[in-house]
């Protein structure tokens, strides 16, 4: 896969894995309204994944479509960031993960609408509206939980603490990003960090929460070095395709 195809693949993998994780909540959320909204976000992410992965397959030109990419790769070939594959944990941990990611994704997609690749720009233009809603929804929950009860505050702090080591990876640039920028197709993610910090800090302040202390980043997702969690997620997600090779659904 060349750099531009890989670029699309990474975007698709982020959305796919996050959508898969959020789908785990369906039917089990703390309130009916929350069930509806988490399913909504999951659905948006699965939709984005479908577009990005189909594009990655088309750019690769070897006959793989989004389904082939989603259901027939092993851990080492997945390129999502480590943040999105983290387990749901309790509701606060789920909110922490979505909070950190949704703001990143909104900034990224906003910039990506200017991509010279018309297909990437079109997907981003559609997805950025969805992501803006996710960022608003999840920020409201961070504020409610942070400035709610003692228990919710403690859980929100623990959720952020779990996720914080995976933040830096979102903004790391490598040769794939460099090639995509060179071609006028990709986004300079490192340039998004300032705006992301401002957004996160503003919400945390409203939630009366401290920003977690900087820590040593855990990296590797983009090059297939994942957490132990991803293999289990994939074995569940890919079960039917693996058990019935060659069948269509």
């Amino acid at each position, binding site marked *: 896969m060349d750099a531009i195809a890989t670029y699309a693949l990474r975007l698709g993998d982020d959305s*796919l894995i996050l*959508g*898969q994780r959020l*789908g*785990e909540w*369906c*039917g*089990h*959320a*703390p*309130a*009916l*309204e*929350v*069930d*509806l909204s988490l*399913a*909504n976000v*999951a*659905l948006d992410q*699965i*939709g984005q*994944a*479908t577009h990005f*992965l189909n594009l990655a397959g088309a750019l690769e030109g070897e006959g793989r479509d*989004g*389904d082939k990419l*989603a*259901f027939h790769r092993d851990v080492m070939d997945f390129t999502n960031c480590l943040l999105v594959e983290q387990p749901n944990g*309790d*509701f606060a941990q789920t909110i922490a993960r979505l909070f950190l990611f949704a703001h990143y994704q909104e900034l990224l997609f906003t910039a990506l609408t200017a991509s010279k690749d018309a297909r990437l720009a079109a997907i981003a233009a559609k997805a950025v509206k969805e992501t803006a809603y996710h960022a608003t929804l999840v920020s409201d929950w961070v*504020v*409610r*939980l942070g*400035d*709610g*009860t003692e*228990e*919710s505050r403690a*859980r929100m702090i623990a959720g952020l603490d779990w996720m914080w080591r995976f933040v830096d990876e979102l903004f790391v640039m490598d040769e794939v990003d460099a090639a995509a920028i060179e071609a006028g197709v990709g986004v300079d993610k490192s340039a998004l960090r300032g705006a992301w910090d401002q957004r996160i800090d503003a919400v945390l302040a409203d939630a009366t929460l401290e920003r977690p202390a900087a820590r040593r980043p855990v990296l590797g997702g983009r090059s297939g070095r994942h957490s132990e969690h991803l293999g289990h997620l994939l074995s*569940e*997600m890919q*079960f*039917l*395709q693996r058990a*019935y090779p*060659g*069948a*269509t*659904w």
Partner: protein
Amino acid sequence: MYTTDLSGKGKGKAEAAVAEDPALVAAFEARVANDEFIEPKDWMPEAYRKTLVRQMSQHAHSEIVGMLPEGNWITRAPNLRRKAILLAKVQDEAGHGLYLYSAAETLGTSRDEMTEALLSGKAKYSTIFNYPTLTWADIGAIGWLVDGAAIMNQVPLQRTSYGPYARAMVRICKEESFHQRQGYEIMMHLAAGTEAQKRMAQDALNRWWWPSLMMFGPPDDKSPNTEQSMRWRIKRDTNDELRQKFVDITVPQAEAIGLTVPDAALKWNEERGAYDFGDVDWEEFYAVVKGEGPVAKERMQARVKAWEDGAWVRDAARVHAEKRAAAKLAAE
């Protein structure tokens, strides 16, 4: 989804003992007989109110519990398109639950009270959800058969006498009809697939057929509330009428995709212009109503766990709202 009225017998008698102004009752009966909608602020007999709260909350609970068997396959849906469709479908069920709880609340019972009744085992939900979803074909079978049966039950409810319920049903019916087609499309695809997929589809039909027929509730001669509900136009067709209609529509659909309905007694009756079919196992039905369905314990356990695990979240939202309201007041 839909649940028939699964309440015990004889409740009506105690309710009827409450004296109500005969003139008000007569005026109410006349409006209902005239097919007028009854609205939340209108006078209504207490028994009508109670019957509606029972039926609407059972219906809402069925939507919510019904999310579980299908939710069981969201993470394992076989491709991206099926995953998105299933997520959207289960989300629709949550939405239906929400409209129905809201419509039921207009009768003076809060959503929390209704939820409490579900979790304590006091309120019922449709027996169908106490059967497990074992394979992907079950997702097809549920959409095709369970939503298909639900539509039979629900289309007449769009003209039910209580306005908020009837209006909620208009939207719900549109979505259910979409779900039914999606389910049938899954089955079509499996039935035209590999041998293993065909086997999966037939097995799902074998397991879901009879429980689907049970969804219409007990036979008419054993349905304690049917007569009054028909008079009040809360219900517009009898259980047996709807069951027959479902069989007549569904059997040709099974034949069209090469699946066999698991009923040796099934036979087209030229004279009646309808299918004759075998006896439903009512002993099983009543056992499942009583909570003895194969996965009844798992379903209730999942609902109770979601409710209890979520308590701190709901508390936090409430406390936060109070804090903000107090701060706003202080600033004024």
